[in-house]
Structures are given as structure tokens and as C-alpha cells.
């Protein structure tokens, strides 16, 4: 199965033209100018590009759209139907893990004739929905109609790591319409956000359903977005009769067994591998890991999905054959973030003697696509092998700006730094400190033991201005995200 398509996808199916007239008072077209940092030359501000998306007015004089419409935005203008004036917008809140954002407009005149839309529930399978937005093929409002095909967990491709509930609709999806509302009976039942390309599947579009939207709106009530929380554990099915007997389970169909509990995560020290989860917040867990909710069998994770940082979840478990109740206070474990696409962050780097050091994250790995197996191992198993405990950042020699001082360094490209002058390098900051030391030689030792790179301090000092000028490097380091 191939990946979800680029993000600018949208679906539109109109129920009745009557509605469309009303909704045109709520719908906006968003023009975004964004600047995406270039991880291959991290000191440069990056290329400027522009895109178009949709949005709609919600209560509180705010505009809702997709996070990917306004990610890395430098300048945003919003247009409403029947008003030729552009209004300058700002990002109020942005949630990259569920691809939603709220915008504000400086000019209070903007909201004068607008109509904030209300949210509905989860539409029934096979019921008709209408999608509104500004797809390619014209600049005016477009309305399309489809039915609800499926309600399921999906990976949200904006972050690439998070999966939440999503509703599949059978409308064609086109670039330029992300962030537009999907309506049923005059209420918003979803925000269109992604789909498959025509090469992969026909008429498969997805919208963000209202439970995810409500969660986002509630999360930002305190003025900031705290991200999704996670149990940070994995579990396995319990279909096997022998396994059920061995774990002391009776003939019914409930329970899943915990496989791994990630250190630093919410369940660390509370849940243990081998525990059988029987109930989560009172919902009986089936042997395939689902619970009955929304008239459907959904993964037990949905219970956690609706909670917030600091809230608790109750697990009824069987440990060594004995029933116990565990309370897990929820948080958002940071190591997972390493493997998400990052937005609105500046790349961190250090240039020293023409050697460029960067911490490996998803954006870095996508930009370089390094084939070094050790680097790939450390990155891929950062969470599952708990690499992050010893190495909160994977500091990589990412690039070499050729100069006599580094003439023999090329073979170390994409090697992971272990030590500089005997100081362990666990973060990019460590390497900055090590290079600040006054010493005759800087000895850079890489993971896996090979030979070190040795830099003569005098040679580095001499090379410094030369390298910066020759390669138009505007700054020698950035440690701020």
C-alpha cells in the first residue's frame, strides 16, 4: 500500500443549494505564503512557496482550517465570499498532530456578516454529506457531495506518526481544498484533510471527525495546545486459547496482553509487560484490542485520544492471574516526536572547521535520506530500543564544506558523534561546549569505534572566516528550534 497523497486534498458534495448560500457566509479562502527550512543548508531561511486552502468561521471570531494549510506560514491572507478585500490573518493555535489550526483576523470588520458554524456528531455510514471549499478548477466556492464510506483510525499524514479517528467519504479529493467544512443537516461533521491519489484508489477522501475537532478546541481553551497524550505501550491480541489459559483468562473474548511499556512514557512504572488489559475506563476490551464505542468497535486507544495532559485513565488488569486496577496519569512522551514531520521549527546545527553537525530528526532524515546503517538503526529504534535514554539527540556529521582543514573527513559523512575530546556528546549543545574548549586538538570520535577526526585548533581558527565566506554560511550555529 502506498502512502497517503500530498496533503492538499479535499472533498465536496453539496446536499442542497439552499444550504450553500448560507454556508457561503462562513466559508473562507486562505492564501498562505510559507517558508520551509532547508535541512541541507540549515543556516539559510529556506524557499518561499505559496498555497491555497479553505477554512470556515467558528465561534469566538476564529477561523478553523488544517494545520498543513498554514504550516511554516510567513504571511496569511483570508478572503470571504462576496468581499474582494484580503484580510490579514494570524495563526492562533496550531495542532500538527491532528492537522487542525485556528486563525484570527486583525481587522474586526471581517466578522461583521459572517456566520459561525456549529458542529454535529459522527454521521452514519452511507449518509450523505456535502463538502465545501476551493478546489483546483476555479477560484470560486465549490460544493460537492458524497456518502460516508467508513469510520476508522487513520494515520494523519501531516505528522506521519499520529493516528486518530478519521471518516472516509467517497468524493473525489483535489488539491487546494484542505480545511474546508464537510456538512450534514446544516452542521459541520468534519474537516476535509487528506486522500489518496487517483493512482492508488478512486474516490477515497478523509475528513477529521468532530471528536477530534472538539478535543482540539477544548485543548486550546487554556490558551495553548498541549498535544495528544499516549499510554506509550504496545499490546498484542489474545486469540490463542493456550495463551488465554496460561494467563488465567476464562472462555470469554476479552483482554489484550501488554507487550512493551516505553520508558519515559505515561505507563512507565505503572503497567508491566505481561499485564492483561481487561477494561479501560470501564469499557470492556475485546481480545483484538477494540472497545464498543460510537456504536462501533474502535481501538481501545480512542479512550485515551479524548483525554488531555494531566488527565487519568483507569485500567482493569490481570497481573499474575490477579485482578488489579491501575490509574495512569497521561502525558505526551517526547521521544515519539523525533519521528514526526516537524513544522514551524528552525533546523538546529553547528558548523565547525567546515564540518556540519545536526541532530537527526524526521525532517533531517527526509532531506538527506542517508544510507548509513548505524544512523538508520539509531533513528528507527530510537523509541523501541530506548536509544533516547543514552542519547537524547542523535548528533550526526551531516555535511562537509570542503576545505584543507577537513580534507580527510569525507568518509565520516552521516556518522554519529560519540565523543569530542573525551566528552560524551548526547545533545547538540554538548558538542558546542566541547568545541568551545581551548585545546590544541579537537578529537571527534564516532559511534562504532573507527578512527577519529582530529582537527588542529589553529587550523580551524584560520579556516573559520574562509569557510563562512566561501560557502555563504550566515551563521555558525543555531540551537533554538
Amino acid at each position, binding site marked *: 500500500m502506498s502512502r497517503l497523497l500530498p496533503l492538499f486534498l479535499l472533498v465536496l458534495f453539496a446536499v442542497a443549494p439552499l444550504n450553500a448560500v448560507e454556508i457561503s457566509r462562513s466559508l473562507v479562502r486562505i492564501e498562505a505564503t510559507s517558508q520551509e527550512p532547508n535541512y541541507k543548508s540549515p543556516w539559510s531561511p529556506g524557499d518561499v512557496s505559496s498555497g491555497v486552502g479553505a477554512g470556515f468561521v467558528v465561534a469566538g471570531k476564529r477561523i478553523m482550517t488544517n494545520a498543513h494549510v498554514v504550516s511554516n506560514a510567513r504571511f496569511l491572507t483570508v478572503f470571504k465570499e462576496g468581499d474582494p478585500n484580503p484580510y490579514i490573518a494570524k495563526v492562533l493555535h496550531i495542532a500538527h498532530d491532528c492537522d487542525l489550526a485556528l486563525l484570527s483576523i486583525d481587522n474586526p470588520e471581517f466578522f461583521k456578516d459572517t456566520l459561525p458554524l456549529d458542529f454535529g456528531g459522527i454521521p452514519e455510514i452511507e449518509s450523505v454529506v456535502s463538502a465545501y471549499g476551493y478546489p483546483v478548477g476555479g477560484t470560486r466556492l465549490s460544493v460537492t457531495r458524497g456518502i460516508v464510506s467508513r469510520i476508522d483510525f487513520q494515520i494523519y499524514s501531516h505528522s506521519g506518526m499520529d493516528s486518530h479517528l478519521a471518516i472516509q467519504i467517497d468524493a473525489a479529493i483535489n488539491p487546494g481544498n484542505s480545511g474546508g467544512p464537510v456538512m450534514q443537516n446544516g452542521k459541520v461533521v468534519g474537516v476535509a484533510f487528506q486522500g489518496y491519489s487517483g493512482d492508488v484508489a478512486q474516490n477515497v477522501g478523509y475528513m477529521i471527525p468532530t471528536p477530534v475537532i472538539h478535543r482540539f478546541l477544548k485543548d486550546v481553551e487554556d490558551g495553548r495546545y498541549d498535544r495528544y497524550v499516549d499510554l506509550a505501550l504496545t499490546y498484542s491480541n489474545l486469540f490463542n486459547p493456550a495463551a488465554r489459559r496460561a494467563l488465567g483468562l476464562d472462555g470469554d473474548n476479552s483482554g489484550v496482553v501488554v507487550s512493551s511499556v516505553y520508558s519515559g512514557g505515561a505507563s512507565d512504572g505503572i503497567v508491566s509487560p505481561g499485564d492483561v488489559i481487561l477494561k479501560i475506563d470501564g469499557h470492556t476490551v475485546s481480545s483484538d484490542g477494540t472497545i464498543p464505542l460510537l456504536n462501533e468497535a474502535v481501538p481501545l486507544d480512542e479512550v485515551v485520544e479524548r483525554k488531555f495532559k494531566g488527565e487519568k485513565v483507569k485500567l482493569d488488569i490481570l497481573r499474575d492471574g490477579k485482578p488489579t486496577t491501575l490509574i495512569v496519569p497521561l502525558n505526551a512522551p517526547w521521544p515519539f516526536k523525533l519521528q514526526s514531520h516537524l513544522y514551524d521549527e528552525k533546523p538546529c546545527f553547528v558548523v565547525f572547521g567546515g564540518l556540519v553537525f545536526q541532530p537527526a530528526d524526521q525532517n533531517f532524515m527526509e532531506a538527506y535520506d542517508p544510507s548509513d546503517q548505524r544512523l538508520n538503526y539509531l533513528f528507527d529504534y530510537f523509541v523501541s530500543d530506548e536509544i533516547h535514554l543514552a542519547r537524547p539527540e542523535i548528533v550526526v556529521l551531516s555535511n562537509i564544506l570542503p576545505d584543507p582543514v577537513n580534507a*580527510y573527513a569525507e568518509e565520516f559523512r552521516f556518522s554519529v558523534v560519540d565523543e569530542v575530546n573525551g566528552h560524551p556528546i548526547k545533545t547538540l549543545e554538548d558538542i558546542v561546549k566541547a568545541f568551545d574548549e581551548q585545546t590544541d*586538538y579537537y578529537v571527534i570520535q564516532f559511534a562504532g569505534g573507527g*578512527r577519529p577526526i582530529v582537527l588542529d585548533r589553529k587550523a580551524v581558527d584560520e579556516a573559520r572566516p574562509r569557510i563562512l565566506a566561501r560557502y555563504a554560511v550566515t551563521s555558525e550555529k543555531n540551537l533554538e528550534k
Partner: protein
Amino acid sequence: MKAISLQRILWVALLFLCPLWVASAIADTAPGASDASLSQSLLRVNSTNQVYEFFQPWIKKPPFSRRGIGALLDGGRILVTAELVANSTFIEIEKPAGTQKSSAVVERIDYQCNLAVLRPVDLAFLEGMKPLDLNGPLRVGDEATVLQLEPNGDIARTLGRITSISVGSYPAESGSFLLFKLGAPLQQRDGSFTLPAINKGRLIGMVMRYDLRNQSADIVPTAVIRHFLQGLDSPAYPGFGRLGISFAQLRDPQLRRFIGLQEPGGIYVTDLAPRGPASIAGIKKRDVILAVDGLPIDQDGNYEDPDYGRILFSHLTNTVKYPGDVLPFKILRDGKILEIPVTMQAANREDSIIDEHLFDEPPKYVILGGLVFMELSRPYLKEWGSKWTSNAPQRLVYYDVFQNELPADRGRIVILSQVLPTSDTIGYQDLDNIVVTKLNGRSVKSLADLSEAAKQPVDGFQKIEFEEDPKLLILDAASIEAHAETLKEHYAIPSLERL
């Protein structure tokens, strides 16, 4: 799903399917090389080979045949490349004109150096034939003639020149040996998997690879052949030594100054095989090797060989010297010069965590209820095709790549290769390629351990622990036993265990 390696087959295809082009055979006019006398030294060798299917280790893949030309040596031995007869089930030898056939058996085979000697089942078959002599060392620029056979038994000669002499990697990827490259426009001819190359009527080596685009043949030279033939009449084969070090070049003047290296040359030891001769002798990471056996080593790791000039010093340690020979190493450590004697030693398979190749032997396996367990090996990984390093399950690839860094007592890597769905493995059928750590509480460091531990179920259950999710699998021991025969029948497995 699971791809099958075509690498080896492709090479054969390249040899045989290359377009015909016009090239006149150039006569080797040197004395003692007349067609009639050369014909008496060549034999067609047709080998039928069959390899195991690693994803179903109880069956063999369909047989395929490889055809090449062997060189007759003293004592009725026929020299061929190991690849020609690897995994052979039947070897046929044939006189050049195809008038007589007989069969042969492998007398000695070494996959590392890619050589094998065959012995005819009936020695009388060789009557009237004349063995070839081995030539001495050649230099770059010297001429050599590759011999092929026409269907009627005539010899087709292709003259070429040695374009390079260096230490290079051999097909088994388990060691580097001296390698000649011969620029020669070889024609497409049947039976060219292995070809002898001569100079003035004497054997200079065996062609083991041909690069069609560059018209360049890779030749196993006599220096390697002589080592391989050593002690042929004694039962003990010394084999080739393997030093067991990785090193880095020492070109960077900043690094040379930092480690206080005044002398020219020297290489930097970066890694040591845990039980290799260098490690046993006490050579350490970060040592600088300055000289071996009195011969200075330059900053790239070369020494001056009296026969072949500037080549990698592993030729000296592995090929010129034999296991058991003691070589003094001149080492710079912490600013002091040391002399460390290293006793060369052949690579010991017991020392390796992951087998590099499994020729002529069936892969081991244990089937428990429907869970198929194997020891991780390079041929297993290679079932994912030529791009196995990116296509095979990454954790297994990392085990292979970083095996030197595993603890010395790690033992073999036992994996759950796949799950054959049965009533005992319900819920487990999606699992594959995960590493086993324990069975019934006993640690598993080989398939034999696993088989042994399976005999001691805990409370009537087989409890298998893994490094990765799902971490623990539980099977009903009695039920497995009861269903063993049905399992064999359903999946046509002759035996549930092969150790």
C-alpha cells in the same frame, strides 16, 4: 512478500546471453601450447546444483546446472572454481570433444578463495591426459590467454593483458585475496562458467567472473591456487588465515601529528574480530600497525610484495603465510613502539555469530506447533534479493552488520522465521522474523538450545520470549505434540527438526 535472490543466476545469464560479437581468436604461438597437447589438459565440467529454500528450509529449490572448463593438475586432480560446484548434487566430466563422459566428486572445496579440486570416480578416465603446470607470478601488462572449447572440441583462445593486480573481494564475500584483472574480449560460448587462463602453456589462474561491459575477466591467480592446493595429500587442510582486523588509512596529517606518528606509513586499527588472531595476540583498537613480518606497511595498508609490487598486506598474512605461522607486528601504541607476534589462524566458523554462507549443507530448523525457528545466516537474508540490506527485516540486517559489537557470549541469533497457521498458532500467524531470547525460561543461543528447552515445558506450556513485540508467545505443549503428525502431513514437512 519474500523475494528470491536472482543474483547468482543473473551472473550466469550474463555470461551466456551476451550478444555475439566478432573477435578473432588469437593464437598463442608459444612453444608447448599446441591445441593437441592443451586439449589433453582440459575437461568440461557439468555440475548440477541444488540449494535449499530458506523460507521453507525442509525443501530444496529446483536444480540448475553450471558448465565450465576444469584444468587437469598433477595427481589426477581437476581444478575448478568453488562456485561452479557449490551445492552440487551431481558432477559430470567430459573430454573436450565430448566423446567420453564420467562422473567426479569434490575432493576439496574452499568457498572463501573460490576454488575446488575434483577427482574422477574412475581414475582410468584420465589416461592419456596431460596435467598443466602452474605458472609463476605475472606483472601488469603481461599477456595471458583464456581458453574456451568449441562444441567439436577445438580450443578457442582469447588473448588479453593483465590490467591490474590487487587484493579484491571474492564472491563468497568472506575475505579478500589476490585478484588479476585481464582485459580480454571473451566470446559467448556454452560452458564458460569457469575457464582456465594460460601463459606459454602454463596455468596462470582460473577466470571466475567476466564483466561484459568492460571486457574484463577476474582471475584467481596461481598465488592463491598454490596456497589452496597445499597439503592436498594430507587430510588436514590448512585453509587461509584471517587476521580479524578492520583498519583505517592514516593519510590525515592532523591525525598523524596527534598520535605522535613520526615514521612514514602505518595504519590505524579500528575494529577487531573478538576471537581473531590479532585480538588473541593482543592487538588493540587504536593501535597503529607500522610493519608486518619486517615489511613496512604504508598509510593505505599496502606493502611491497617481491612478486606483485605494492598490494594490500592481507595478501601477506592470508595467502603468502599459512595458519600456524607467526608474524611479528610492529605496533605504535601510546607513543611507544611494540613488537607483537601474531599466530595466524584460519577463520573458525564457531567464532562467527552469523554464518556468511551455507554451501553444501542444509539449513537447520525447528518447527514447534507451526512456529518455524532458524538461525540467522547471510544466505537467509539474501533471500530478499540483491538489495537485501534495505529489503530484509532491518533488525536482522543490523544484527548482521554489527555482529562484531555483540557480547562475546551472544551465541547464535535464533529467529522465528515464520508461522504456519495451525490450530495451535491461532492469533500468531502474522508474526515473522523476530529474535528469540528464551524458551521456557532457558536462554536460547542456538537452535540446539531451543530444541532442548522445548523438551521441558512449563506447566504444560511452551513459553517463547522474544526481543521484540509481542515479547511472549504461549503454546499448549500437549496439543503441539498431538498435532505434530497432522502438521507434517498438511504442510508436507518430512521432519519437524533438523539440527
